């Protein structure tokens, strides 16, 4: 190390990087490489192209070129093109029902408003400078449903429900206050508020007190708002179509995450009773088809309840879906937990964090993050599986499509509505799966430097 260098050193000048030789660029080179690199490849290319042409052509012929676009009844369609082309007017007439079910037409704005609220609620997640994204996401999952449920259902509000609805309003205001403060002022809402009150220099304890009072005031205001609030009741029997599908799968998804986390922790627990019960629950609900669970809850839950309890049919289906989804989610999350290296647990406990703290701060965030693609996959599965509620007679998207063909005017028209339903499902699922693939790629990058 202490060797002396005889001469003064030369300075190393790295050569500038050259661009790669252009031998392989341009569309022709690309085609040669990817489509016609050798004879079997070329044959496969031609075959693939042919299949694409035939399939796409046939579908277009039926759905677009040969279709009837305006008619008063199916009879007219049949007289015009027989069964060679699609008959869209029936679907068009029923489309509102396929989306909102039998929800009173003049109240449909409430459904729209509900989903708009959700969009607004999660919009801050896409604002670049907002940092409390986790809290906003959690609030969307935990508070939004109360607000939405009243919006959708309406009617008389019990005290408990009122309390929760007020929490929903409170949450919405908080989310946007936070989002605006962080996006434009670049600091948490608390600080903005303190600044506005001129209490920035108060002692920590005082500041906290002020914030708490502000939150409480806001809640009281929200509660007061609910007192004046009375929407016409729309019974769940009238819910249907895509709206119902979204409600069922949405609740299932929302419920499955926390329940799945608890079940997964339970299954990994050191306590034999807890772990056995969790395992039994998970395995039972994973080994039977959803349709049998739906059947069971649909026909038997009223028998399980004390005489006279009236359990709404939608609620039963939702409970079934939730149990089912929770069991699946538990296994996904367990996979994520297993992937967390032991070193993480050890580091957390060597820093003095307890079981629940390290689960909350260290383990779960990482496990959930690793498993996001799998979780989204689960969501997609659940979303598709909700089609099964049509079999127990809920008017979801699928049943609504079926009802078109039972309308006296459009009797027998059922392939077209199913086609539309398939497209709707595809758009939703494909969007979700693309999102998860994108996320997966981003996560993979995050593992490297830079």
């Amino acid at each position, binding site marked *: 190390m202490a060797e002396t260098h005889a001469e003064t050193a030369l300075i190393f000048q790295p050569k500038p990087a050259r661009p790669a030789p252009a031998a392989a660029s341009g569309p022709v080179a690309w085609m040669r490489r990817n489509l016609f690199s050798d004879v079997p490849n070329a044959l496969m290319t031609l075959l693939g192209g042919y299949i694409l042409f035939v399939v796409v052509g046939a579908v277009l012929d039926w759905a677009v070129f040969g279709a009837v676009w305006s008619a008063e009844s199916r009879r007219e369609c049949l007289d015009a093109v027989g069964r060679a082309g699609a008959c869209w007017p029936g679907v068009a007439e029923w489309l509102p029902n396929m989306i909102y079910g039998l929800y009173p037409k003049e109240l449909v704005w409430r459904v729209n408003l509900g989903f708009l609220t959700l969009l607004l609620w999660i919009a801050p997640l896409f604002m670049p400078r907002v940092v409390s994204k986790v809290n906003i996401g959690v609030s969307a999952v935990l508070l939004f449903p109360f607000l939405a449920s009243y919006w959708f259902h309406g009617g008389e509000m019990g005290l408990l429900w009122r309390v929760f609805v007020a929490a929903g309003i409170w949450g919405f205001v908080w989310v946007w206050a936070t989002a605006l403060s962080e996006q434009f002022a670049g600091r948490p809402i608390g600080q903005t508020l303190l600044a506005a009150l001129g209490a920035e220099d108060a002692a920590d304890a005082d500041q906290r007190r002020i914030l708490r009072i502000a939150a409480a005031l806001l809640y009281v205001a929200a509660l007061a708002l609910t007192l004046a609030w009375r929407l016409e009741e729309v019974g769940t029997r009238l819910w249907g179509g895509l709206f119902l599908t979204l409600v069922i799968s949405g609740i299932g998804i929302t419920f499955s995450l926390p329940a799945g986390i608890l079940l997964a922790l339970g299954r990994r627990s050191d306590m034999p009773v807890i772990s056995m019960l969790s395992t039994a629950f998970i395995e039972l609900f994973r080994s039977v088809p959803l349709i049998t669970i739906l059947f069971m809850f649909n026909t038997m839950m009223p028998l399980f309840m004390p005489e006279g309890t009236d359990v709404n049919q939608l609620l039963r289906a939702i409970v079934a879906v939730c149990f089912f989804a929770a069991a699946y989610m538990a296994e996904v999350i367990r996979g994520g937990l297993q992937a967390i290296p032991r*070193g993480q647990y*050890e580091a957390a406990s060597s820093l003095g964090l307890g079981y629940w*703290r390290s689960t909350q701060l260290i383990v779960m965030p990482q496990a959930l993050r690793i498993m996001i693609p799998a979780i989204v996959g689960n969501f997609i599965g659940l979303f598709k599986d909700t089609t099964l509620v049509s079999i127990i007679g809920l008017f979801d998207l699928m049943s609504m499509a079926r009802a078109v063909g039972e309308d006296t005017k459009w009797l027998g028209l059922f392939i077209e509505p199913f086609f539309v339903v398939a497209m709707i499902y595809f758009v939703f699922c494909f969007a979700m799966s693309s999102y998860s693939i994108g996320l997966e790629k981003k996560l993979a990058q995050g593992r490297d430097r830079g």
Partner: protein
Amino acid sequence: MTGPEQAAAGGAKPARVIEIAGLNKWFGDFHALKDIDLTVRKGERIVICGPSGSGKSTLIRCVNHLERHEEGDIIVNGVTLRGDKGSVNAVRGEVGMVFQQFNLFPHLTVLENCALAPMFARKMPRREAEALAMTRLERVRIPEQARKYPLQLSGGQQQRVAIARALCLRPSIMLFDEPTSALDPEMIKEVLDVMVELAEEGMTMLCVTHEMGFARQVADRVVFMDQGEIVEQAAPEIFFSNPRYDRTRAFLSQIL
């Protein structure tokens, strides 16, 4: 056997901060630690070395109860480790630990990694915790990386963050488990430098390492382990130049 008393510097002896007596530990049927006795005084720097599987990691992991010991006593700063929440928490508050694989929390920024324990284990307000974290990051010379995520740093930087994180609990004792062996040779030095500084500031340190240069430079005492036992312990001058046991000599000849 050279007692720890001999190794410690002369004069009025500082307080004993770690006392291990008759420690035995089993993994299933495997006897991993056998009758370990070890006393560490305040400000002492101890390097533990020995062949792979000799129980070095297990020993220091027992000290902050990452491993539960079956027999014997471990007393840290007067608290006897019993496996109950109270004593474990008390000890872990006094002892910082640095791992071979860094074990940083990849989903948190460097600053959050460091501020976590003060905030949640010490219930410090966030502002204070972050200020504390910044001073520690300055001490390991990477304050400018505070907002980055661990995986965006080089190995050496990560290990320095890990040290800063451990220091944020203001521990009186630091444990290191092979802090440099997952690092590229280029980065070893930057981590050792930080450790040397820490030693010079008078931190009590228990360090498992194969870096004999480091041992020579800062250790007050080198402890050599084999097959779950402490074979010998001595001041580095003596240990390196004149080990007592042939096992030690064999080991030294391989590693130097």
